[in-house]
């Protein structure tokens, strides 16, 4: 949150500290060492998965912790040409995009009303959504499955998209309402003097001004949907509707003997999340810490 300002102020400030050289001399090498160890620990298992996909099963059986020799690309090629992978990838993409759009649209509309309309029951509406924080999906999953089944939505992507939107709404409303409330009333007055209706004000002013908040909640909704395992596990049983997490789990149990291909499948399904994360890293970190810490 304050990342942009802090580093600028720090260098000068530190020069005034007494005995700065001793502190740096003590701090630097140890710090770097620990950083390297930490990074190695974080990335080791990830690299194991990725590199393992370049080995053959016999290589893995003979020496599970070795490097590929020679490097083989057939595992990755097999997975990339298999229908299972692309079906799951397509389903995950559809579910994540629809969840994100739905969450942002519904959350934005509701937050706009809560933040900028005056009416009785406004506080009640806010606490209704806030109360949703008390019910993580794990608690509601069994009856949620029954509800989805009653609506005839099992084995459809809508059956996971709608609940995902519903469970993303509490966080969305809690993040967006303060954002929308912070837009000065003067802007709204100026817009209405210029002839904009309340909805015109919403489209022309509110949406652009609250973009940072919108992007944050959108990213949270996308990642949660992309990684969601429990809900698809309950709702989807037809492999044609599987999302990537289910696809990975299914592939891993189906081809449990073919370790190399499982590793290739796993690392390929990791790539979209990693690309998405590297694109939006600042927003994700800022959003999570902002949403949580304040």
């Amino acid at each position, binding site marked *: *949150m304050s990342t942009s300002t802090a580093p600028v102020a720090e260098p000068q400030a530190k020069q005034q500290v007494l005995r700065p050289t001793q502190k740096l001399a003590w701090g630097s090498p140890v710090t770097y060492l620990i950083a390297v160890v930490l990074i190695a620990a974080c990335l080791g298992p990830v690299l194991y998965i990725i590199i393992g996909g370049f080995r053959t099963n016999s290589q893995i059986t003979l020496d599970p912790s070795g490097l590929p020799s020679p490097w083989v690309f057939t595992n990755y090629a097999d997975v990339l040409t298999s229908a299972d992978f692309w079906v799951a990838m397509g389903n995950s993409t559809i579910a994540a995009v629809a969840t994100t759009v739905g969450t942002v649209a519904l959350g934005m509309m509701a937050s706009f009303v809560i933040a900028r309309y005056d009416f*009785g029951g406004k506080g009640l509406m806010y606490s209704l959504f806030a109360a949703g924080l008390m019910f993580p999906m794990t608690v509601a999953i069994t009856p949620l499955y029954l509800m989805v089944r009653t609506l005839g939505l099992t084995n459809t992507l809508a059956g996971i998209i709608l609940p995902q939107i519903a469970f993303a709404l509490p966080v969305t409303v809690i993040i967006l309402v303060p954002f929308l409330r912070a837009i000065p009333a003067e802007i709204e007055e100026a817009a209405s003097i210029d002839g904009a209706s309340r909805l015109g004000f919403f489209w022309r002013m509110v949406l652009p001004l609250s973009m940072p908040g919108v992007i944050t909640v959108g990213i949270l909704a996308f990642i949660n949907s992309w990684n969601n395992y429990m809900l698809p596990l309950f709702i989807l049983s037809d492999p044609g509707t599987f999302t990537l997490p289910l696809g990975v789990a299914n592939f891993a149990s189906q081809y449990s003997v073919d370790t190399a291909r499982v590793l290739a499948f796993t690392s390929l399904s990791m790539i979209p999340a990693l690309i998405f994360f590297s694109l939006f890293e600042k927003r994700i970190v800022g959003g999570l810490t902002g949403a*949580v810490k304040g």
Partner: protein
Amino acid sequence: MSDSQVLAPEGPSAVGGGSTPPPTARSAGTPRRRGADWRKRAEIAVLTGPAIIVFLTFVIVPVVMAAYYGFFRWKGFGPPTDFAGLQNYVSILTDPTFHDAVRHNFTIVVLSLVIQGPVAILFALLMNQKIRGRSIIRVLIFVPYVISEVIVGTGWALMMSDTGAFNTLLAKIGLGNLEQSWLADPDIALWTLMLILTWKYVGFAVILMLAGLQGIPDELYEAAAIDGASFWQQQFRITLPLLGPTIRIWAFLSMIGALQLFDLVNIIWGQYVAATAGTSTMATYMYLNGHLAGNYGFGSAVAVVLFLISLVVALVYQRLVLRRDTEGALTGASGRKGRKK
């Protein structure tokens, strides 16, 4: 969880509404104003309607129905008719495998706090030094948190299996006598789970702590340094107390997450092995005995028990610990505070 704090900032604006007259006065105004009033109500209905309908249908109604279904022996077909009273709850609370699951959950809660907390604070302190490549380090330690539980579980399960990479690596570096049955041995499996959980979630804790550290003004350290405080004295006297709110919120999230733990256990151990390996949780118990067994009345009752346990933990924590912070961090109030910084 934080109802009272959530309501607090809302109260005045919703009821008093300082600048505007109360609704009754407005509706009795001129015809033109009444028209505007109807238009406003229509806008409110159209804008909030979809969100409220989706939210009620998929969050609130299922939760309420769980409380209802929990009193029935019910296989999930047709309306529940076989009223069982508290029988489901009695069965759950007297089932030794459920006791095991609860014990595992609480062990994980405590170990997560004890292991991840100090590790995260230590790493955050070191990462907060001015070193090159700080931003790239931040990205990399966050990678495990972004990867889905399924991928983490699949990869780790392969690594930690009896003939997996971890055991052979130990043998290679001459620690062959440390080889263990990491996943199957009931004495060890829970610790393996803790290792994986720490790996997956410590990055998140570090990022939180780093954000907290950046909120601490540099002047305090300068003043302390002038007064002759050593590096560690500064950390214990300045950093830790001022990091308090961040630590307390992280601990809260960690506890609730540990109580709801499902994905990793289900992926690595599967629903049937978890109990014998000593890593079953309340959620895997619910999945096995409710969903897979088709006993939806019973499964709903487990959900209610899981919810009540989480709620009690949350309320007790809120009472004893979080109340010390002037503003609850899960509420809108802190959202405003956060942006002002």
